[in-house]
């Protein structure tokens, strides 16, 4: 074999193996959180009612998970997962492992689709909030039709889904009483100066364009509107207990975001727990011990706040 052919061959092998190795590492590391919550699931564990309709103009649906053996004569409780994805991506299926995990703990669970930004439709936070509220109403009605009375719920979510979970929890518009909320890595305050990365992703040139997209409104001063869609600004003395987790090397959600929220909790005396993920970026894959702590804590919250 000629020397030049050998070099080309070795280079090709190097590139292929390098890319393959990088992809395997990303898949293994990135999938670690989901492996932590994965549970065995079959018909004896529970039933999935997939693609259930709820009132919205864009044809979004939700999936409902009913654990086996629930007592119809007792109050039941719902954990609603809201997927993340920078408000412009993701799907309800992202919550499948979360829903199955909490369903095996005895809770009715659900995961919901909502209108996404940058897909050619108007998709303000207001619209997303109202869609989630409609989904909750539909879930309540469907659970009743199946014979279950849902007496309380806990919305939860990751990233953008965490924001929507908090909005539902704090704005008082939920058809099912919200008992607590838990979220990972959620944006809490939409001052445009904090969101240059999201603006670049969504190809927005000005802060006004960002505000218009988030609020669905055109105006000269967005400060009040931004507060109305920001969880940190709608926290009040009546807000429900909250469990939050943030990566300490998050490159997507500014590190300041968690402080806006915790300052509001402290100001209004809202009970909360904060778990820091010291080695994690936005995906929370590098601190599985902290994720386990977060999951255990969420179940503690359910024990404490779902009981009458």
């Amino acid at each position, binding site marked *: *074999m000629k020397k030049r052919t*050998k070099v080309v061959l*070795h280079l090709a*092998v*190097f*590139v*292929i*193996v*390098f*890319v*393959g*190795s*990088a*992809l*395997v*590492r*990303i898949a293994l*590391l*990135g999938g670690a959180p989901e492996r932590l919550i994965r549970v065995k699931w079959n018909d004896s564990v529970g039933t999935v009612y997939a693609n259930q309709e709820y009132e919205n103009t864009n044809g979004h649906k939700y999936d409902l998970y009913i654990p086996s053996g629930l007592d119809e004569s007792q109050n039941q409780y719902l954990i609603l997962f809201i997927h993340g994805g920078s408000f412009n991506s993701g799907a309800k299926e992202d919550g499948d492992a979360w829903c199955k995990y909490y369903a095996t703990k005895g809770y009715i669970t659900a995961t919901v689709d909502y209108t996404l930004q940058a897909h050619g439709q108007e998709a303000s936070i207001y619209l997303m909030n109202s869609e989630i509220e409609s989904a909750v109403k539909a879930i309540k009605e469907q659970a009743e039709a199946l014979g279950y009375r849902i007496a309380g719920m806990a919305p939860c979510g990751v990233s953008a889904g965490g924001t929507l979970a908090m909005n539902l929890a704090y704005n008082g518009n939920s058809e099912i009483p919200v008992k607590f909320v838990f979220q990972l890595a959620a944006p809490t305050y939409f001052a445009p100066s904090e969101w240059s990365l999201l603006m670049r992703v969504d190809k927005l040139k000005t802060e006004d364009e960002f505000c218009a997209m988030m609020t669905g409104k055109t105006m000269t001063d967005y400060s009040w509107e931004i507060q109305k869609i920001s969880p940190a600004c709608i926290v009040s003395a009546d807000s429900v207990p909250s469990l939050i987790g943030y990566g300490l*090397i998050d*490159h*997507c959600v500014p590190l300041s975001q968690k402080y806006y929220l915790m300052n509001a909790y402290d100001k209004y005396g809202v009970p909360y727990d904060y778990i820091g993920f010291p080695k994690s*970026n*936005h*995906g929370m*894959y*590098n601190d599985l011990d902290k994720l386990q702590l977060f999951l255990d804590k969420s179940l503690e919250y359910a024990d404490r706040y779902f009981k009458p």
Partner: protein
Amino acid sequence: MKKKDFIALVIVIAVAIILGAVCGKLLLDNLI
């Protein structure tokens, strides 16, 4: 394939695996 070529190929693969794994983690730590 000569023994020398085989050893060279093994080294190339080993280095690619290690560098790929390191770069994969770096990418994850800095992107998402």
